[in-house]
């Protein structure tokens, strides 16, 4: 025995040409899964796939193995535009303290029933 797996074989050997082009890694995709009782797709994680069709299949294999989902979306990670983490102040802190934007700020008028 020469070591390694006996059920493996010459899989690692390249046939014929021996050309080894440097391969680009597969692009990244973001995966969204809707569970059977869920109303919306929820971000589950990401994966690599050569194209959209294979990305859905890889998502099926990676994120619905344990009966988690009934529907999948995949989106190229490059298509997602995100907010700037350094702009937290201007983006998200402005809404703090503005309690008049919440329904609980307002008192119920007399005579309004069933609210």
């Amino acid at each position, binding site marked *: 025995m020469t070591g390694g797996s006996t*059920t493996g074989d*010459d*899989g690692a050997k390249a046939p014929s040409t021996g050309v080894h082009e440097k391969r680009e890694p597969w692009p990244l995709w973001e995966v969204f899964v809707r569970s059977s009782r869920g109303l919306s797709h929820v971000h589950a994680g990401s994966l*690599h796939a*050569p194209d959209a069709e294979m990305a859905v*299949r890889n998502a099926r*294999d990676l994120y619905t193995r344990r009966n988690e989902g009934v529907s999948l979306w995949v989106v190229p990670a490059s298509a997602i535009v995100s907010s700037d983490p350094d702009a937290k102040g201007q983006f998200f802190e402005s809404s703090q303290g503005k309690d008049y934007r919440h329904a609980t700020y307002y008192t119920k008028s007399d005579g309004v029933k069933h609210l």
Partner: protein
Amino acid sequence: MSESNASATRITPGNALRPEDIASSSAKPTAEVAEYALRLGDDSLILAQRLGWWISRAPELEEDVALGNIALDLMGHARSFLTYAGHAWGKTEDDLAYLRREPEFRSAHLFEQPNGDFARTIARQLVVSHYQFELYSRLVESTDATLAAIAAKAVKEVDYHRDHASQWVRRLAQGTEESHNRMISGLTLTWPYVEELFTDDPLIDSLGDAAVLPSTLRKPFDALITALFAEAELQVPAVPGAIGGGRHGCHSEHLGYILAEMQVLAREHPGATW
């Protein structure tokens, strides 16, 4: 799970047929049905063992998981068929998988063929998944209720295997010159073993409507492969069929090595659990 424990958010494994259900069932196959189940189980068992090799070696991590999933599906089918076959002889699935000798295995030669490169593995997957899909989609009407139930579970899984293999055949055939050449080479190495899958023999004849005549699957198999190859601009390899014999225990040089690796632990440590 009782209704009172059921939760709106808990993920359950679902309730498809499991090998354990077959193990605890009292359904006992006839000797002929058991022999037939052994063939189907051995096909899947040997291929599952072959495919397991790819884990950590596929082109990308995602493909490791895809091939690993397929191997596990096949292992599940093997467990069901072998468990059922074992009922005829008072043997467990483990007795049959780990303690039989090479001439006692009934798998066809295709299943023990080397993995080769990724394209060769995909070529083998293409043939196996299309063959098994045609087989199981008819076996659901078997007069043997257990075979029909196993097939009903398995057919959905091999349908996915079929899709996986077809997707890759298209991509490899129409990818780079290198992938195209490898796909053709993989198909050429695989095709001699196609014929054995579709060969009838006296056991099948004796089973009547409990089994599916392999020869009846050839036409639908060829139709699907021809359509796929037309789309991928591939030709069916013009190669003669290899000498079969797997159904009668005559195997190629490959099976012994597969069994040595698969069985060593069970034979060195009988009854080991962990």
